[in-house]
């Protein structure tokens, strides 16, 4: 899914880092904050922020953005405020992709119930990274390169087009590494669904149109496979 606009709610350290990372990716980007101090912090970081309160009716979003190509990040200071913001956005925009930050598992569950599409539990993520860095330093390094660095190796998700040559085949029929120099980590039925299955758990999956393949490979190999599959850029 390609989004044209993004909004970050809040401007603490987390929100600041999110804004710095995603702002260049979207033609239209905005920061909404709850108080003047956050507004000045945003300004100092180079962002013009608008004020809001939790009782908003969110007409401003309708006026300034197209909700169908908008993605929002809820990164307020308190988990309770984030839950309230999420639920209030969801009550108005049924299909708006909402990504929310939560401190712990308990808050993460509440955010999910409030209607967030993705919840990033900061403590859990940090704990995962810390243990991984100490127990599997090479994995950490390689994944970091694949995900965040400008290396030639990339992780990508490719949606299977209607008339793709893969349609009707089983995953195990194809030697992805040999034929395309890519590795298929997982397959999923619909893009925003969380129901993916790892290929390591079984290859009996039948490839259908609109399935999504999560692949790792070099830029060139991924591009070659996409072209062979008939993916329209």
């Amino acid at each position: 899914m390609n989004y044209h606009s993004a909004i970050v709610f809040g401007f603490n350290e987390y929100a600041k880092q999110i804004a710095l990372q995603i702002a260049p990716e979207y033609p239209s980007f905005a920061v909404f904050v709850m108080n003047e101090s956050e507004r000045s912090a945003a300004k100092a970081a180079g962002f013009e922020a608008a004020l809001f309160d939790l009782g908003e009716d969110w007409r401003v979003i309708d006026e300034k953005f197209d909700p169908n190509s908008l993605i929002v990040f809820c990164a307020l200071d308190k988990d309770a405020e984030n839950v309230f913001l999420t639920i209030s956005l969801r009550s108005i925009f049924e299909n708006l992709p909402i990504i929310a930050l939560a401190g712990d598992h308990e808050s993460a569950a509440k955010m999910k119930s409030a209607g967030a599409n993705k919840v990033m539990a900061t403590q859990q993520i940090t704990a995962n990274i810390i243990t991984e860095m100490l127990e599997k330093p090479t994995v950490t390094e390689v994944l970091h390169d694949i995900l965040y660095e400008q290396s030639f190796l990339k992780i990508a998700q490719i949606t299977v087009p209607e008339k793709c040559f893969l349609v009707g085949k089983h995953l195990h029929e194809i030697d992805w590494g040999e034929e395309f120099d890519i590795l298929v980590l997982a397959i999923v039925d619909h893009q925003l669904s969380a129901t993916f299955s790892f290929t390591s758990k079984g290859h009996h999956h039948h490839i259908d149109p609109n399935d999504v393949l999560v692949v790792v490979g070099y830029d060139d190999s991924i591009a070659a496979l996409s072209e062979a599959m008939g993916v329209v850029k």
Partner: protein
Amino acid sequence: MIGRWIVGIAFFLSASPRYRHSKKFFHNLLENPSYPYKKFFDYTMMILIVISVYILVHHVKYEVKPDWLFFNNYVISVIFLIEYLLRLWVYSDNSKAIIEQYEHDLFLQRPFKVLTVLHHIVLTKSKFIFSPSAIIDLLAIMPFFHEMRLLRVFILFRVFKLFRYTKSLQQFVSILSSKKFEFLTLGMFAGVIITVSSVLIYVMEANNPDSPINTLFEAVYWSVVTIFTVGYGDFVPVTSEGRMVAMVIIVAGIAVIAFSTSIVVSAFTEKLDEIKEDKLIDDVSKVDQFYLVCGYTPLAAQVAHRFLKTGKQVIIIETNHKKVAEAQKEGFLALNYNPASLHSYHAIRINFETQVIAAILLEESDVLNVYTALTIREISKNVQLLSILHHHENRRKLSLAGINEIVYTQELIGLMSKEVSGRPVAFEVIHALRSENSGVFIEEIVLDSIMANQFFETTKLTMFHKRLIVLGVYKQSSKSFFFNPSNSLLVEEGDVAIVVGTRSLIDEFKSLMRRKKRR
């Protein structure tokens, strides 16, 4: 002349590495509870004591084979004697005392006083000789002369000797000794009551022909048996006056028992925290390898849970006792010490070089983490340090404090947000792999020479082909990652393979790589 010889010998011994090494070895073996081999020595001595007591008890009524008697009378007693002499030797450093006295006299430009230093040495050694444990040690050697019937009583001291090797018994004695004053008061009270009642009962009963109490010894015996509420009934007062005395002593007896019970209970209550802490420190010293978490926060709890899930040991150090209690309630091994203090690590007796895999600094401020890092670096230059970073501008300060890995969660979340908005499924896949909750794992396998040789051949086996994803090989020699490697890549010992698969498949892969070579 003698003085010069003594000083010469002292300097020689002080400079001799062999002598110092031997003395240190025996000191550790006999006195250092954290020395790994001490427990073996203690167990051996305990076994010898048990054998010896068994032989001596058995010998009271039955014949014992001459070999066993020889073993008990000579071998065990000689071992005990050697141990006693070694303890006497390591108790103090004579050569150091001689050199200090010599240098002191030299500085004051006066002749070396041999007698002063000898007096000092004798005084120091006699402190050991007259200590209760050394007296028991010495008396425990005595069954050597077991042929003399009277000396058989020294068998008791062999049993007492067990105290030296059993920490819980030592603790018990030390707890009771903390209430010396109370026990002394109780003893005096009981002594006065026994004396008065013995005299009274003797006066009241001795002249009565029907009374069984006829001597002062019988009177004292009756008083002791009564005051401690045993009351055998073999001696009973028959006169009314005697019975009056009995009533008073019975009431006093209850007071004595109640008083002594309360002393013991209060001593244990007061020392309970100390005992628990000692036990925890003991437990820590027994853990071979662990992650040291400094500061108990919600993040620390998550990290500890994850390590425990993978079978790794974690020790938490936290200043706040409420947080320590919380951590212990969660089932973690947590100690109430300040992670930023050198004293803490000395008290806990942590060996950073051999026990600590890495120290993880998770305090709630960068200031505390830097301070803790510098403290740990003072003890160990090599231990791996990982710290959480709270404010971006402090990153360099953490690096300067010697922290090897810095985790800045906010930046990480920023990067992930980009990922989750651009490639949500890919993000989910990687997150699921990292959280290890999906049943599929990403693992790194450090290849030894056998595994390196068999690597490609094993990946081609039907059970792994297309099921185990070999993401790539990290070559140590070139420090580069080779994605989806082909047979042409030279895989060597020390290289790291990164694979994705189920736990059982990965384990089987590792085991088959090693097994194939042996065939």
